[in-house]
């Protein structure tokens, strides 16, 4: 399966966007205004308005390592003597790198970020048939294109394990630095306190928050 490298999955989707645009929009007072934006432009604005890092809706989707969205308006003409190609639809390009299998991932996406999913895909062709997690999985599979080659330069363990590892790397590096030159008994006592605080074998917590971009609020205690 070229979409898979170990336990990591490379999802590549092109979701066609409806041509044209809405007939009108409403202003703050509910009055009808003309809206000259195409559905593709509306979608691009919505994507660019999404909050980032730990506030991104994708931070709520289990096992997402990295993902991206953009609107493919058209293909780039390479200049003469090449021939000119144009798309008849715009496409929402959504690619994701995640741990595990596709169906579980997409179910998790619907379960944890259905509000954002509806807003992002609202103007895509045939998305009006999506009503629940099952139909969302079917829809994305229809938009999926096969990855010809997927390269994994990182790890394929679960996101919880990756984040716990990063938390431990940070904390243990500080511990090793702070406890240089101590006697065996002092060191053992300090490590006992460190292990009780960091719980190395518990991937649920304490750990780093998905998408954490600042150290001051990166740590979550977990259940």
């Amino acid at each position, binding site marked *: 399966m070229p979409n898979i490298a170990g336990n990591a999955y490379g999802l590549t989707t092109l979701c066609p966007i409806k041509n044209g645009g809405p007939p009108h929009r409403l202003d703050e007072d509910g009055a009808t205004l003309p809206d000259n934006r195409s559905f593709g432009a509306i979608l*691009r604005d919505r994507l660019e308005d999404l909050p980032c890092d730990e506030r991104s809706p994708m931070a709520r989707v289990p096992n997402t390592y990295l993902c991206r969205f953009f609107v493919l308006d058209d293909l780039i003409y*390479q200049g003469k003597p090449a021939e000119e190609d144009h798309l008849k639809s715009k496409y929402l390009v959504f690619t994701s790198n995640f741990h595990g299998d596709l169906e579980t991932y997409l179910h998790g996406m619907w379960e944890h970020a259905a509000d954002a999913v509806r807003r992002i895909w609202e103007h895509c062709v045939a998305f009006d048939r999506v009503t629940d997690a099952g139909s969302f999985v079917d829809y994305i599979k229809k938009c999926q294109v096969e990855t010809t080659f997927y390269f994994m330069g990182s790890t394929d363990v679960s996101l919880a394990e990756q984040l716990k590892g990063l938390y431990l790397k940070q904390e243990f590096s500080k511990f090793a630095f702070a406890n240089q030159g101590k006697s065996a008994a002092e060191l053992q006592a300090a490590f006992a306190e460190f292990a009780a605080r960091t719980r190395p074998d518990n991937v649920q917590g304490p750990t780093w928050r998905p998408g954490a971009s600042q150290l001051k609020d990166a740590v979550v205690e977990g259940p």
Partner: protein
Amino acid sequence: MSNIAGKSYAMNTISPLPWHKALVLKLLFFIARFRTTSFNGLLTLSLIHYARWAILRPGDFPHLDPSQPKEDLKYHYEFFFSNFNGSWDQYVDSFSSAIPGGLDLFWRGNVKYPKSVPFRPFHNYITFNQYWTSHYYNAYPMAASNDVKSAEHLRKELVDFTRKVEGASPEAFKEQYDQLLLSLQYDLSTMAPTPVVSLAAAAIDGRERPDAAC
């Protein structure tokens, strides 16, 4: 709009190639899947989290409803998506310098591909065919790809060590601890928010507020 999420950069390129060259390229990628040494250069560079290539025929563009016009394209298209650490220039130059042959192998059939060396035409080609990302999410913006890999090694070693030293005397503990530090000497370092790698990223940082978009 941002191609940057913390220490990671999202590159998207889409470039055309004739159908017969697309067939050859697919065959090359098929062989590469079973010859893992083909990507040793990429592994050595060690700045990529995940990357992918997708080669599409005109008929591969999803068609979901009769109301959607079918695509009628003259070329096949090579889609390339990468998640890497560092700046655009660092990445592109690393590739050109370290694995020029590999780059040429996977793009050689593309229309007007100039080859990876010299740098300037190659830079122009990538820039010309690059698409900007509207929303990029990274689960660990403060970590580089090497941080994620060394963190996994450290986590496993630390879990083993914690079990191994249960009930040990202070002297035995110290001996094991010193061995642990030796085995982790390449994995110990602290992480922090990314340094500014571009004026665009700096502008984004500057305007970011709790409820603002990225």
